[in-house]
């Protein structure tokens, strides 16, 4: 059994079921992100783990112990909030020491641990500051140190970076990940930012309307999305409608262009429609590009995005976007040009709901 096990978790607020049959096992020392759109139930699950909400059904176990009858202050779980939630009347050192004082640790031990934690977040020099004298990023680091100081079994972070500006968001998420790996603490991180989830997680749970649509490594989630929702939520993705020509040979058509898929089509009949997914970065229109498969179409737009140029072309009824890396000599395709995109047939994923 996993270290943190959620079994058939359900939660209803009145008549509304917000979490529906959620199952997951999280290993000791693992960093798991809950990724999903607003209102899909991420915070609710986190709050059930912390004990602030009671599940309507199902069980939560940490290290083999059921959490059912434990109050939030008995669970030994560290929590970091979006709004920092530092105690305004205490300075940095006292904030970090709070949990240790409550646990009745001796003064010398508390002082040593506070020092260690402030070193970990590189804020030793601000120990005497009060929360209102610090930037958001600094406050959130203190909140992290405060949550970690009592050595919790599990660390929960609910969109800890959403209130910060873009630059700090990136550096702090890397810092969080480094500290997490250094301490080996089991961590659940809630976010609705896919880049954040992809960049720092061991595994990602993509949530949709109270359910886990897919659980997997960032690599799996990005490259092998198992549902249409995951495919469209994570990364930019072309969703292409194709017609089945011959299920036996995996032959399909997009517009009037025939393609043979690698992946078996499964139980479909000739004439059925299937959804295919293709990442914008999977193909190339360069002269002599590699690839066993090609699609041609007319360019309908071409946008300069800095490091890449994103071009959209029309193939039959579908619009397919593809990216080219920017380089000084590159001539972007013009609207109205007919271009041929080459890629490997295995890059075309079949999306089964």
């Amino acid at each position, binding site marked *: 059994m996993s270290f943190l096990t959620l079994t058939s978790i359900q939660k209803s607020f009145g008549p509304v079921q917000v979490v529906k049959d959620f199952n997951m096992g999280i290993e000791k020392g693992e960093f798991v992100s809950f990724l999903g759109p607003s209102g899909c139930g991420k915070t609710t699950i986190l709050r059930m783990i*912390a*004990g*602030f909400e009671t599940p309507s059904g199902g069980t939560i176990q940490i290290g083999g112990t059921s959490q059912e009858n434990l*109050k*939030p*202050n*008995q*669970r*030994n*779980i*560290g*929590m970091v*909030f979006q*709004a920092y*939630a*530092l*105690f*305004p*009347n205490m300075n940095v050192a006292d904030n970090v020491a*709070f*949990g240790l004082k*409550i*646990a009745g640790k001796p003064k010398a031990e508390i002082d040593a641990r506070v020092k260690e934690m402030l070193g970990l977040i590189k804020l030793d020099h601000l120990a005497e500051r*009060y*929360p*209102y004298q610090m930037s958001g990023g600094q406050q959130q680091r203190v*909140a992290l140190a*405060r*949550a970690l100081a*009592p050595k919790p079994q599990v660390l929960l972070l609910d969109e800890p970076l959403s209130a910060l500006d873009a630059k700090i968001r990136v550096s702090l998420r890397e810092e969080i990940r480094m500290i997490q790996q250094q301490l080996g603490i089991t961590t659940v991180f809630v976010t609705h930012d896919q880049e954040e989830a992809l960049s720092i997680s061991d595994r990602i749970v993509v949530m949709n309307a109270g359910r886990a649509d897919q659980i997997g490594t960032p690599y799996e989630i990005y490259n092998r999305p198992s549902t249409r929702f995951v495919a469209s939520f994570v990364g930019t993705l072309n969703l292409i409608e194709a017609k089945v020509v011959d299920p036996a040979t995996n032959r399909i058509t997009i517009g009037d262009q025939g393609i043979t898929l690698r992946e078996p089509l499964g139980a479909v009949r000739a004439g059925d429609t299937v959804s295919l997914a293709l990442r914008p970065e999977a193909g190339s229109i360069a002269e002599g590009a590699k690839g066993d498969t090609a699609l041609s179409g007319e360019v309908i737009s071409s946008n300069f995005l800095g490091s890449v140029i994103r071009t959209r072309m029309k193939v039959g009824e579908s619009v397919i976007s593809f990216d080219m890396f920017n380089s000084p000599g590159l001539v972007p395709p013009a609207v109205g040009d007919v271009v041929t995109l080459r890629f490997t047939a295995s890059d075309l994923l079949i999306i089964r709901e």
Partner: protein
Amino acid sequence: MSIWARIAGWAALIFGLLYFFVPLGGLFEFSLKARRGVYSLDAYASVFADPQFQQTFGYSVIMALVTIVIGILIVVPTAYWVRLKMPWARPYVEFLTLMPLVIPAIVIVFGYIRLYNTSSWLPLTGSVMGTNILLAFGYTILALPYMYRAVDTGLRTIDVATLTEAAQSLGAGWATILGRVILPNVIPAVLSGAFLTFAIVIGEFTLAALLDRPAFGPYLQRVGANKAYEPFALSVIAFAITWGCLALIQLVSRFSKTAPRKA
């Protein structure tokens, strides 16, 4: 703004200040006239020398402190709980705390005397201590509107729910949360409620007189009825106490260490 509007504004302000300060000035001036022909502090000296002044004032100060403690113990947890768990109940609780402004103190005290007289189930008026307790609770009721409002406003400046959860996740129980997290963050608000309570209790007449306790309010009244200059000196002293309280409220709210809340 035109010059005329500005002049009119100043005129209104000056009129208002005169309206307040001329009578006060007269009061003060008269209180200095105890000795024929010269200004003197004789009236004040006689007031301060009066053992009754010392006793009643001391009694009222102690009652005020007791009232403040009872008020804090009742109001802070209540206002906190309402904000945290029953936000829907806030308008009702607020309405309830305003009742003492609507119901005259005389009604409250007659109610008390009826409920707690010597032949009742809880004969509080039967002993001095019991009557003191009754008086303190009566004062608490009178101060409730001010105390509740002050504390509730203070609670609005902090994120009560998230701070509570943060403390809980760090292992804190309710007593710790209230004592170490919530109360310290509303201290300025609690203090301003406390100074208002102090000012109310020091001058209160009805409850103390009808419960027959040796408080400062009834003493003021007695002196006023029987002496010439001393009542005016006393009035000036009473004003000074009230203003002292108001000044302290200003001070605490200005020098409070907590940050203004971010949205």
